[in-house]
């Protein structure tokens, strides 16, 4: 079963049986998530800095720019949800976290964080 999976991944070759086994290509290091496009990564970083410094509208503007480049990136939607939470726009925080979930696929960590944002937004509105 493991061999079958390695072949599907296409990352490693199966070592040959016999007296002199052929070298196995190393699988690429597991990545935590897909790598962002450079422009998007830069905008996310800039948004993080701005949000940390309390410049929330600027952070949101950077994230919106990033979303124009990668509209299906769940991390961008999540980061925007966090900014709205900081701005006390709880309705938007919840909706944006839900939007992030729609692109999250099987990423359990991302979904869990979205749920945390949704829960916090709902609690704040009670």
């Amino acid at each position, binding site marked *: 079963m493991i061999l*079958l*999976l390695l072949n*599907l*991944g296409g*990352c490693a070759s199966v070592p040959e049986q016999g007296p002199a086994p052929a070298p196995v290509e190393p*699988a690429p290091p*597991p*990545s*935590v*998530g*897909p790598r962002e496009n450079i422009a998007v990564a830069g905008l996310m970083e800039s948004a993080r800095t701005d949000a940390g410094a309390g410049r929330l*509208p600027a952070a*949101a*503007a950077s994230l*919106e720019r990033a*979303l*124009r480049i990668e*509209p*299906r990136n769940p991390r961008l939607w999540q980061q*925007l949800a966090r900014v709205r939470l900081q701005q006390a726009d709880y*309705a*938007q925080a919840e*909706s*944006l976290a*839900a*939007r992030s979930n*729609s*692109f999250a*696929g*099987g*990423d*359990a960590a991302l979904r869990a964080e979205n749920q945390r944002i949704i829960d916090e937004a709902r609690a704040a509105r009670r």
Partner: protein
Amino acid sequence: MITDPSSGEVQALVGGKDARFRGFNRALDAARPIGSLLKPAVYLTALAEPARYTLITPLDDGPFVWKSRGAPDWEPQNYDKKFHGRVPLRVALAQSYNAATARLGTEIGVERVLDTVKKLGVERELSPFASTLLGAAEMSPLEVAQMYQTIAAGGFRSPLRAIREVTTQEGRPLQRYPLKVEQAFPPEPMVLITAAMQGVVREGTAQGLKGFLAPEIGAAGKTGTTDEQRDAWFAGFTGDRLAVVWLGYDDNRAARLSGASAALPVWGDIMAALLPLPLELPPAEGIEQVWIDPQNNLRGDSQCAGAVQLPFAQGSAPQDRSPCVSVAGAVADTVDTTVKKAKSWWERIFGR
């Protein structure tokens, strides 16, 4: 009108032959009957009840008479002046059958359809009569774009915007118009209605798009033609764009245009030049893809003649197997499912 489905930003807007004309802008201001463009709202309302309606539920496209006190009997005709008997729900939308839609809409209730239209983002009050189901309702291309925006964005409604912010000459922002979303529908019915609208293009009244876009794009849309062909509409979306096209005369004369013959080629021409991304719906948890044998509406497999793979809300797909299912076919499908599951496990652990 052309918009970005995920943000609601208006990318292009043409209100007439003279693009610089400062007066009446048809894209914003011309409220015209939308005809069959309302049908997706009827079918979306139905598909939100998977216990009652799925993409394969048989509908009756027989003669339909709607009686209401104080009004003449309403007997909608189909475009080809024929009735088509029992047809699967997805076919009734793909072929834009009026009789089946009127029957479905009155069965569900006009008020519930109007509620869906409102949730899709249309603010205008539509009249609560059965004829509204077939689009006896006036909207501008802008309002139609807002309605289809919510479908294209998987149920997340964003107000259409043409301005991001207003700044001073030095660039200091005075007023921002930020991206806003609101989840108007759960994801499952949106997957179903989008699949049905892809059927409009693949097998239905919008097949003419084959001349403009490769089938892999998987565009979804709806044609619309009104009484005496006064209005020709096409509204549709791909992976990264939504566009609404309307053609007609200001004096409302019969233009002898149909959505498919007049609006569709304009849409196709525009989209082909924009190199659209394929429409890929993000997978929804409550949806499963099932092979169906159209001969008997039972569960089939990829080897059954004429079999189609369709999305169903979990638990709403037929359980019984069609006789067309061979052991070899069933094994092939099981292996296929196992391989897909293994791949997605791999991707979750190691990233894409």
